[in-house]
């Protein structure tokens, strides 16, 4: 079947199926199982209303269960087993983890990931705050915001191409077509650098790509928070003689600290999952490995499900503090 046709059929079946499910299951409940008629009408209605939420929830619960909850458990199990030839698997305890901890590549990925975790959220938040603060004070601020926010819509892969062009290097003597080398040569560099293979700086050059993408997000959220600050507090500070910088750092920033934390953690989660950028730009060569790409290597290149799952569990472990914090907050809020 032609994929377009298949897509249309799926949309119809998928969407129609969903709507049909919801419609007919409700009908069944109200008309057949617990009809709102006869001597037990009242009781039947009460019962139907006890069941109905679960009808509404069922598809979502199923999908969440199969696609998110089950994999967490299954990955944990896989990380403790080893595949044997013939499809069997065998419990091996922590052997996979031990093997992984013994690999320098893993530690390289860990080290790099930690750097990513420090640099990307920090820079994105700082730039985002800067952009938010600046654009709220000029008339063309909305245009500026929109342009800074734009990379958000660009895929990591697209961003990788964009930035590879920026980092491109041509042999000595030729015109440089990568901006970075062009600037480098312009400011007196002797020979163009192959930036992405330079161990050390190359990691930061990859991080810049993500900062470039995430700054817009930080800006949008922080800008809303900045605007939510009561105008009177700022005016009071000005009357008290604070200069614009003091107003910003002593009055505004403390008031939006909560939002800054939210932005920071959200970007942290993105960083922990970052895969495409590294995959497309260096594929972890020249000491730019990160956990997500390391895991992909293990799973699909080395076909080592045990170590792959173990590294996935490490990522899970790293996000779990945030998970716990989020759940805690959500529960607090609902009370």
């Amino acid at each position, binding site marked *: 079947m032609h994929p377009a046709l298949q897509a249309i059929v799926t949309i119809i079946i998928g969407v129609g199926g969903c709507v049909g499910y919801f419609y007919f299951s409700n009908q069944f409940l109200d008309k057949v199982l617990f009809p709102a008629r006869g001597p037990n009408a009242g009781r039947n209605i009460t019962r139907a209303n006890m069941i109905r939420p679960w009808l509404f929830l069922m598809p979502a619960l199923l999908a969440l269960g199969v696609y998110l909850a089950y994999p967490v458990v299954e990955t944990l199990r896989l990380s403790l087993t080893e595949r044997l030839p013939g499809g069997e698997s065998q419990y091996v305890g922590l052997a996979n983890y031990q093997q992984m901890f013994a690999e320098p590549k893993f530690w390289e990925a860990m080290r790099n990931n930690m750097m990513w975790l420090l640099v990307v959220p920090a820079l994105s938040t700082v730039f985002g705050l800067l952009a938010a603060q600046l654009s709220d004070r000029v008339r063309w601020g909305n245009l500026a915001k929109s342009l*800074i926010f734009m990379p958000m819509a660009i895929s990591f892969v697209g961003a990788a191409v964009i930035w590879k062009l920026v980092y491109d290097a041509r042999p000595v003597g030729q015109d440089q077509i990568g901006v970075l080398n062009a600037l480098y040569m312009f400011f007196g560099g002797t020979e163009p650098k192959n930036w992405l293979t330079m161990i050390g700086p190359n990691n930061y050059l990859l991080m810049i790509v993500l900062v470039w993408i995430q700054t817009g997000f930080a800006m949008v959220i922080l800008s809303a928070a900045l605007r939510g600050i009561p105008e009177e507090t700022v005016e009071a500070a000005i009357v008290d003689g604070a200069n614009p910088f003091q107003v910003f750092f002593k009055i505004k920033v403390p008031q939006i600290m909560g939002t800054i934390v*939210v932005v920071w953690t959200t970007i942290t989660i993105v960083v922990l999952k970052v895969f495409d950028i590294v995959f497309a730009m260096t594929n972890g060569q020249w000491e730019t490995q990160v956990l997500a790409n390391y895991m992909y290597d293990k799973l699909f290149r080395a076909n080592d499900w045990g170590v792959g799952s173990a590294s996935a569990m490490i990522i899970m472990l790293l996000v779990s503090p945030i998970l716990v914090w989020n759940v805690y907050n959500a529960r607090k809020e609902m009370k």
Partner: protein
Amino acid sequence: MSNIAGTKSSLTWAVHLSLAALVLLWLFPTVGLLVSSFRTSDQIASTGWWKAMVPSEQNLTLRTGGAEDQVQKEGGFVIEGNLFGEPGDAVISVWGTSSRAISDYQAGETAELKDDATLTVQSNGDYQMQSPEEFTGKRGQRIFVTARTPPEFTLRNYKYVLFDPSNREGMAKAFFNTLTVTIPATIIPILVAAFAAYALAWMDFPGRALLIAAVVGLLVVPLQLALIPLLKLHNEIGIGKGYLGAWLAHTGFGLPLAIYLLRNYMVGLPRDIIENAKVDGATDFQIFTKIILPLSFPALASFAIFQFLWTWNDLLVALVFLIDSTGDTTVMTKQIVELLGTRGGNWEILATSAFVSIAVPLGVFFAMQKYLVRGLLAGSVK
């Protein structure tokens, strides 16, 4: 704050300037790609894209016509023509006949070649080569010119990448495949999530608080965890690799955010309206379809944008759940990664392919930015 007396205007300028610098910095890389996608491979390889906007000094190596173009004129042989094929916008300033001396002659000057031959090159590229003897070389004379060419852009790359049937790395098919993944993967989770969100927002049942907490928890579970178990599952139940698997995976991974966003929005709808509908005799199903869904349009739109962007831009799910060894179902992101490997130097193809894949999300972004921002705010600021 501009209305406060005595605000220094120098500071305002500083604000304008620094914001402009920031915006340019953010825009520059993307513009580079866009501009490059409209240049020929020669142009891309010889000058930086930022020079494409202004007339560029270029050093070109061109050839005169070969021996077969010669005509005999009053006691000599002449080859005439234009170095660029026909007179164009390029203006030659200096030229030379050897790679070591590319600027020996001004335009309009005549050079002595060997065997008493002479060559005159005009600034518009017209040349005349004369010799008493018959010319023999088939390939003509090499000439090194320094020419100033006006900006020139071409749609050829797009034609090649999108419409050339002989191009096996073309993006047309991948574009289509991406679309095929994206649309069902955007619509289905919205529908499923909307019902769940309504139940979590407005229906009373034991365990509701727990479920909401679970959704918040699942919000951050890394996708990576799901790869192997689900690939195994898909293989076991016979879905294997393909669209169905990708749709299901995207649905599953998108649901927590969808439920979370929609529930937050629906909880904020006025209780009275829903109760009034109950008094009016609407069933929960009717309340949902006739009241809640229309009123939740902004939230639905913002999630739809998120999910669209994320499925369109996704690489990992496609790699793991969709693209099999035949590569028939390849998506644009995967195609680009492949091109990065095989055509790393061919920037015209890379840039164009990348831009083809970026264009749609960018369009969606600019058209629906309002909803995107609203969704972001609903999702992160509490």
